[in-house]
């Protein structure tokens, strides 16, 4: 932890530089925090979401462990949690996108020991894109490469102005790059969406695609890039956009020196899902016949990309992995949390830094409320309120160190600014794993 800063500052204040913000997948690692006692009072360089994240932390004010709503020693919570998981026949381990890679690794190990299913919030985020990667691959680049090279930046089905406020300024549109030295003036930006979002205001061109017609629009572009002649009336009826708009965009894409397609959950959460992502990835791949073109999903949670990486390097699959036969099996729809809960299959769950009681469908939430489950979350949420055992761990990136992956798969070390009396996710999960092994093997 480094202290620095210039000029006089109030007595009792200290500064912590080069802190990584773990609120969203940008993982901006240039934040300078001002700390007074056990509070962060300023987060310089942070966006509106980052400021709320740093200034709103407060795990130290909650008991580290609650069992059936009553404060309890952490050790007792670990014992109860291990017994719930060992005694279950079809346990689910879910969440993982807002914790460190070190903690994620422990959660996967627990799922493995108990023969359960491990799934992450990726399945209700860019899980369909993960399926598409397996179908058509991913022509990719780091955000650093994009910052220095991209002269055509396209956002499709995403609103970074509100979900990732520094994406434009830190990585894609505004900064001067090695091959785009004039910054914004050297780049052309297109936003494709159903809504004219706040992001559209930053674009040179906004294209309003008809709701649930992204698949048709992307295949229109694929056809045009390949030189296929299309019927103008049919294209406009299918996409809500005149053919000449798509023709001009296809031409611009082929003429770019370095193009990038960023895509959001406007593709993955709507009709078509993985087929939408597949169409976009295939379009980026096709364009490499003419120029350099890459595609990147814009990821939401601070370490959801780490969850994909950790689950993939420990099991061979990125999410939705089942161990009930003693080896990992992958099948979205069968081993994904939204399905397992909605079908009433899981008989216990370990929820790590996720809030399915707020985000899942009614049938899934109703089933989760019926089964014993353990929840780890620094904040009180609808999920922690109904947990049999609820842990309030220290906040990753604020109280604890570790590793997270930025949305472009670049690992970034965390630099905690504060200490917490509460244990980390990793410590709690390590304790549960150890006790699970003792209960299983003596």
């Amino acid at each position, binding site marked *: 932890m480094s202290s620095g800063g210039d000029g006089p500052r109030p007595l009792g204040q200290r500064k912590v530089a080069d802190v990584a913000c773990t*609120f969203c997948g940008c993982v901006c690692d240039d934040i300078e925090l001002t700390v007074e006692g056990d509070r962060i009072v300023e987060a310089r360089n942070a966006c509106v979401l980052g400021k*709320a994240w740093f200034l709103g932390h407060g795990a130290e004010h909650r008991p580290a462990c609650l069992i059936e709503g009553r404060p309890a020693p952490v050790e007792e919570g670990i014992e109860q949690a291990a017994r719930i998981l060992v005694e279950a026949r079809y346990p689910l381990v879910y969440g993982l996108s807002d914790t460190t890679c070190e903690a994620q690794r422990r959660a996967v190990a627990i799922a493995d020991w108990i023969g359960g299913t491990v799934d992450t919030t990726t399945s209700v985020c860019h899980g369909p894109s993960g399926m598409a990667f397996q179908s058509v691959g991913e022509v990719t680049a780091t955000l650093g490469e994009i910052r220095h090279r991209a002269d055509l930046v396209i956002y499709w089905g995403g609103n970074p102005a509100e979900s990732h406020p520094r994406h434009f300024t830190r990585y894609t549109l505004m900064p001067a790059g090695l091959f785009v030295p004039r910054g914004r003036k050297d780049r052309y930006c297109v936003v494709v969406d159903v809504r004219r979002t706040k992001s559209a205001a930053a674009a040179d061109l906004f294209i309003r695609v008809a709701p*649930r017609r992204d698949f048709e629009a992307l295949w229109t572009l694929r056809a045009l890039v390949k030189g296929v002649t299309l019927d103008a009336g049919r294209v406009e009826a299918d996409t809500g956009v005149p053919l000449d708009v798509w023709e001009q965009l296809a031409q611009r894409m082929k003429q770019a020196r370095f193009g990038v397609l960023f895509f959001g*959950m406007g593709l993955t959460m709507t009709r078509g899902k993985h087929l939408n992502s597949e169409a976009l990835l295939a379009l980026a791949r096709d364009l490499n016949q003419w120029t350099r073109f890459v595609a990147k999903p814009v990821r939401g949670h601070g370490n959801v990309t780490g969850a994909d990486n950790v689950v993939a390097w420990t099991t061979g699959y990125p999410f939705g992995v089942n161990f009930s036969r003693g080896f990992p099996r992958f099948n*979205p*729809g069968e081993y994904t949390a*939204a399905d397992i809960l909605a079908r009433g299959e899981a008989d216990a769950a370990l929820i790590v830094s996720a809030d399915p009681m*707020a*985000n899942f469908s009614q049938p899934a939430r109703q089933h989760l409320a019926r089964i014993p489950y353990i929840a780890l979350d620094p904040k009180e949420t609808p999920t922690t309120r109904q947990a049999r055992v609820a842990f309030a761990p220290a906040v990753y990136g604020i109280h604890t160190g570790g590793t997270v992956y930025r949305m472009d798969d670049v690992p970034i070390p965390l630099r905690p600014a504060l200490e917490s009396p509460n244990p980390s996710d990793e410590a709690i999960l390590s304790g549960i794993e150890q006790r699970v092994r003792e209960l299983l093997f003596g």
Partner: protein
Amino acid sequence: MGTSSTSAAGSSRTPFVLIAGRTAAQGCGISEGKSGERYTAETTCLQMAPEDLARLGLRPGDRVRLASPTGEAETVVAAARPGELPPGVLFIAYGEVSSRLMGADTHGSGMPDSKGLDVVLEKLS
């Protein structure tokens, strides 16, 4: 844009396409606490095109009921920024209302339909 029908209770029911999504206020509300005022206000406020508000005789702050094939929820309406939403499309920040309207079926993908939902809007008196 769909045509209105009339419910058994006599109120008008109009079909829309609902999009749920992230907003900055909803994101800040997560960090401040989901029981906080900002998160609750943001995730229970339905944005409509001003043309749709006028067409249905609604004013910002009026209460409506939304029903999807799998659930229903009540919420208040607000006018979207001019030009943000095309007529016939609604927007709400992710939260309790959007989750209640979301179906459980993921069609073998793990992802429930969460955007572009067919809903019916009914004005509450």
